[in-house]
């Protein structure tokens, strides 16, 4: 009996303590806006298979701290709620419900993962009119069909892939293009873009090789790519698989030009992981690394989150995703409502004074960023810019 009751008591304590932690905040007239605060939420996988992208949500927190220390927005400070969904849609839904109904946030920002986002898209924007700025994936489902409350700043995978393929064919003069993609919506949207360009140009991909998220042995994949005789291999995969395919390809003596998606656009990280093989790989990027803001943000990181080990591109993306939100809040003025915020966002035109390029929202198009530029990995993971901003313009 003693042991049993001890356990019961312990468990009850744990549960009670957890219950205490989620104190509810009374809703004001406009949800998430008080005289002194604006409540903003984000989910991001801090654990589990996609924890790599957890840096995004943490960086957003640093950015808001920085804004608050500069005086906030129209006298209001941003109160930020970051929750871990471990990349599971059921948890994302729980988080969205908690943040909207219990905490009462004004808007959501970022949010990694297409399937996680899809599980809450309609809940947030249709049922509750929560503005959602910068879903952190390049899916086309955010802006097509048009959604009043979503503002996307992640260039669509489809368009990015189109642009990269176009560059490989037209600027580099390559004919044999192979596509190595993760076998899910992320990889497939990339594949569709490349296929669209190839068919527009009257050509075909020489190989389309899928990889499953769980695969740990890529030898067969590399052999398939080698067999096709590709001169260029476009990578639409996780950083892990990007690193592995390079190693395995080298081991079987296959050495094409690799071009990677913007999700692999951290040469520093990739250079280290591949032990130097990443040198020479080209990749799309939509975060303007030449911007003076990069330095400013990294200083903010040193000040507010000195323990952060990783401060590469995915970290900066956390700032990138939150900047349009803050811009919109500033434009919307003191008297903040979701509708006014949407109106204000739609005024943003060709905005370059942030980490991105040419951000434009209109009342009919909420895909704000449509351009990427291409970089190449140099010695020791240095960034070498090889193209200017490339905008998606379909040939047909």
């Amino acid at each position, binding site marked *: 009996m003693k042991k049993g009751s001890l356990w019961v008591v312990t468990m009850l304590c744990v549960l009670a303590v957890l219950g205490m932690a989620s104190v509810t905040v009374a809703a004001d007239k406009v949800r998430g806006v008080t005289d002194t605060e604006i409540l903003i939420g984000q989910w991001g996988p801090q654990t589990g298979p996609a924890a790599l992208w957890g840096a995004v949500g943490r960086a957003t927190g640093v950015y808001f701290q920085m804004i608050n220390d500069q005086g906030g927005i129209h006298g209001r400070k941003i109160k930020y709620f970051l929750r871990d969904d471990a990349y599971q849609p059921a948890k994302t839904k729980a988080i969205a419900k908690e943040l909207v109904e219990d905490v009462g946030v004004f808007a959501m920002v970022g949010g990694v993962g297409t399937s996680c986002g899809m599980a809450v898209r309609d809940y947030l924007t249709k049922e509750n009119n929560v503005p959602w700025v910068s879903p952190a994936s390049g899916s086309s489902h955010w802006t097509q069909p048009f959604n009043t409350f979503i503002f996307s700043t992640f260039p669509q995978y489809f368009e990015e892939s189109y642009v990269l393929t176009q560059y490989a064919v037209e600027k580099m003069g390559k004919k044999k293009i192979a596509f190595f993609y993760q076998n899910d919506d992320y990889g497939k949207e990339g594949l569709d873009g490349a296929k669209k360009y190839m068919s527009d140009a009257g050509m075909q991909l020489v190989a389309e090789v899928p990889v499953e998220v769980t*695969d740990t042995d890529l030898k*067969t994949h590399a052999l398939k790519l080698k067999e096709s005789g590709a001169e260029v291999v476009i990578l639409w995969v996780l*950083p892990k698989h990007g690193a592995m395919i390079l190693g395995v390809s080298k081991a*079987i003596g296959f050495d094409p030009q690799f071009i990677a998606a913007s999700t692999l656009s951290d040469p520093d990280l990739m250079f280290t*992981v591949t032990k130097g093989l990443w040198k020479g790989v080209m990749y799309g990027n939509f975060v303007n690394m030449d911007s003076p803001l990069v330095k400013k943000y990294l200083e903010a990181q040193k000040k507010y989150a000195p323990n952060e080990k*990783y401060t590469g591109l995915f970290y900066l993306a956390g700032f990138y995703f939150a900047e349009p939100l803050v811009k919109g809040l500033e434009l919307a003025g003191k008297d903040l409502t979701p509708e006014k915020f949407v109106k204000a966002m739609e005024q943003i035109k060709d905005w370059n004074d942030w980490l991105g390029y040419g951000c434009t929202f209109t009342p009919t198009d909420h895909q704000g960023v449509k351009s990427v530029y291409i970089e190449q990995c140099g010695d020791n993971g240095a960034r070498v810019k090889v193209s200017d901003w490339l905008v998606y313009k379909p040939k047909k």
Partner: protein
Amino acid sequence: MSLVGDLIIGGLSIGACYALVALAMVIIYKTSEVPNFAQGEMAMISTFVAYTMMESYGLGFWTSGALTLLFALGLGAVLEISFLRPAKNPTILSLIVITLGAEMILYGLAGWRWGAMQLPFAVPFSEYSGISPGGVMITEMNMWTFAVSIVLMAFLFLFFRFTTLGTAMKAVQQNPFAAKAMGIPTRRILTFTWALSSVTGAVAGMLIAPVSTLDPNMMLDPMLKGFAAAVLGGMTSLPGAAIGGYLLGLIENFFGGYVSLEFKSVVAFGVIVVILCVRPSGLFVRHYVKKV
């Protein structure tokens, strides 16, 4: 023909890793009838320890490798003593849940300590160059993987065959009560089993990490495949587990090479279901019918 050769080499080299994980599982299963779901994470933690010793303390590969094996030995023993031993009148299912719990704890610890970033695991032999007889590339890494796995298998075989400790372990498996009556310290034997299995797993982890890069999710897939290989081989047979591993690697590679890459990672399980329908106790173990 070079494709076939490449597929064979690829299949054997990943198969060797599966075989080691399978062996690690079989060692524990043989003595306690528990499929150890924490096997993969134990190997993953050990590999991280090796990485830390090399990166943070600047030790050489071989020194840190050897120290890691010691660490793995201790890890296995500690897990057994702290989690499995205290269970009162455990059923197999509750032991499985304990290993699942241990898996979660280890996974959490690794994520907490080392974060989720991909890390490079450096080895002093090349993953890209080696010999290429007949146009089939066999890298140094491949050769080391073969060599290490075969040496380890031979060692385990000899160990179980010729040493007193090995014989005692077999005795515990066959009849724990009789073994206890004969004066074999069954508890200590079980602890040692876990230690030995943990070491085998750690070797597998260190052979997988250079190719697949290091992160907390590294061993999820190899662990399942290793389990599958062990079942294929018969779960209680050491040579069976090893052959099961190689077979699985080859099946996967040839299926991926000639049929479909999309289903490469699940074909193994399909094959296993078919084989189990024909031979319910795996390929290399005689079907054991429980007597009343």
